[in-house]
């Protein structure tokens, strides 16, 4: 067991344990903060896989963006305007059966399948290659994503303006 193995297991433990807390915790703030550690653990995995750019994107998007907004929303609704957020669970049994079946299928598939393997070495840096692939081979997707973000912005503005209009 060398250094990278140890680091891998540390990150794996962080991801799994905080993931379990996220799902099981009744306190929504605990769930949100353990989600932070899940994301962080996944980012660590990416680093170990040699995907440095993706791991930073993982942190900047999930930890810096989504999670902060999530916490922000919870804090504004829950404490500032004192609205209760319901966090109970219903239909536990069907959910357990469904999840167990799905997980069983997934695990058996993952173990039994012979996945395609492409030879390759871990690149030292991925940012440059990623950029040129995005702007050459996947340029349509790149542009489409730009439109997608524009639409998301317009949609968010539209939803935010909904209630204001009524008071006019």
């Amino acid at each position, binding site marked *: 067991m060398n250094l990278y193995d140890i680091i891998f297991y540390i990150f794996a433990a962080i991801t799994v344990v905080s993931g379990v807390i996220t799902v099981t915790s009744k306190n929504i703030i605990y769930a949100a903060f353990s989600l932070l550690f899940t994301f962080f653990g996944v980012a660590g995995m990416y680093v170990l896989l040699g995907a440095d750019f993706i791991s930073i994107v993982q942190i900047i998007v999930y930890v810096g963006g989504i999670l902060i907004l999530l916490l922000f929303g919870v804090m504004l609704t829950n404490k500032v305007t004192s609205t209760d957020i319901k966090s109970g669970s219903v239909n536990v049994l069907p959910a357990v059966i469904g999840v167990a079946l799905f997980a069983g299928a997934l695990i058996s598939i993952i173990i039994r399948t012979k996945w*395609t393997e492409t030879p390759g070495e871990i690149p030292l840096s991925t940012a440059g290659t990623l950029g040129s692939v995005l702007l050459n081979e*996947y340029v349509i997707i790149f542009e489409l*994503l730009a439109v*997608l973000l524009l*639409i998301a912005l317009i949609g968010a503005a539209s939803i935010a303006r*909904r209630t204001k209009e009524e008071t006019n």
Partner: protein
Amino acid sequence: MIPNLSEIFSLTAPEIVIAVTLILVVLVDLIWDKNKVPAMFTAALGLIVAGVVILNGMPETGMIPNNYMVVSDKLGLYFKFIIVLTTLFILLFTYDSKEIIESHLRQGEYYALVYGMVLGMFFLTSAVDLILIYIALELLSLSSYVLAGFSDKETRNSEAAVKYLIYGAISSAFMLFGISLIYGLTGTTNLYGVNEVLSTTVVNIYTLGFAVILIIAGIGYKISAVPFHFWTPDVYEGSPITITAYLSVASKAAGFALLIRFVSITFIDHVKADGEWILNGAFDWQTILIVLALLTMTVGNLSALWQKNIKRLLAYSSVAHAGYILLGVAVLTNLGLVSVMIYFAVYMMMNLGAFYVVMLVANKTGSEHISQFDGIGYTMPYAGVALTIFLVSLTGLPPTAGFIGKLYLFLALLDSNMLMVAFIALLNTVISLYYYVRILKHMYLKNVAEMPEKIETRGYSTVVLSLLVVPVLFFGIYWTPLIDFAKYCVEFVIK
């Protein structure tokens, strides 16, 4: 192989027109921020240009697969044309829609979001790369979530948006998982590449089946096939009627185009001379599609029987129609494909028409409950007659266009010796007659006053209605041009 820029431009000409117009709509809306007419005209103009570009591009489509992520063939252009026509009608409807006009200030956003949907659907019809398919699907979904909750007058509006969002997020997650499994199996996301791997090497059938079923979940959600249809009634009920009509036609067309392309590119081995598709046996498409189709039409029709809200009724009816169209795909022949294309053209006209009449009535009465239709046949005579025609057409009776759609569908089924399936479909049609006629009963036989007071309809509404009634009747009597056009467009790029 990456094509050069001009090749990309010619492959995606309609998409580029739409994307540019999307930006223009936003800009025009910013410049004239009080007056919403310029934005609307820009939107309509962009669609007309896109329509012209599509028709113009049809004769010169390339039949050679270029291993790039989009193809331009007549099949895709046909569906794009249907989408453009639908969107144009929706814009016409919007001008008349009370719900949208009331949120006057946000109309610019409305057009921009509709354009977002159009762009997503355009790419869905022509994408042959799983990543592009996923992004296009997300673009389509994201715009439609917002549009579903566009007005904020009642709680059901927000309910529709949230339900749509949650179902959509889950199904797109499933689909993404399926895509990742396919990538893991074959090492490529390009559908031609996947086909090549599937036909040259032996892959684990169970894994592939699992992945394909996950992808079917994503597509099935878009076309609201049972058992992925649970969102349909609630979302259709809560959305503004224009958007309900749009979801029921355009986004289904895109979903079907995607399904057809996914099947015909990824799993086809070759097309026989008589138009029968020979699949490469990696996945039993015929069985699963037939099961899905029969389930979809039966559940849709049976649930529609009990509905009191016309929008919910039409929602279930659209589920049922998705079932019929799925049968056309399940035949897996060129004839089946022709029947799907004809059915879609017809379905577009009659379904849009039905929703338009519902909108006109709801504009006057403020509700879509079936009791609001009592005596409409006398108070709004033209709308009543029009709705009758649309409903007869939805049932599939002559002399309306709906009959032609069903006729070709059954022809395709019989051509492939699927007698039992055809019989079940026919039974379903009979069931559907019951609930369509129930609306007619309310319109003409219930609560009829001695001297009915006429409800004024605007001349504009009459014109738009005529634009839909006339073709439904015309193609019911003289359908050759429609058939010819569809047959001309059955030409798609396989490996």
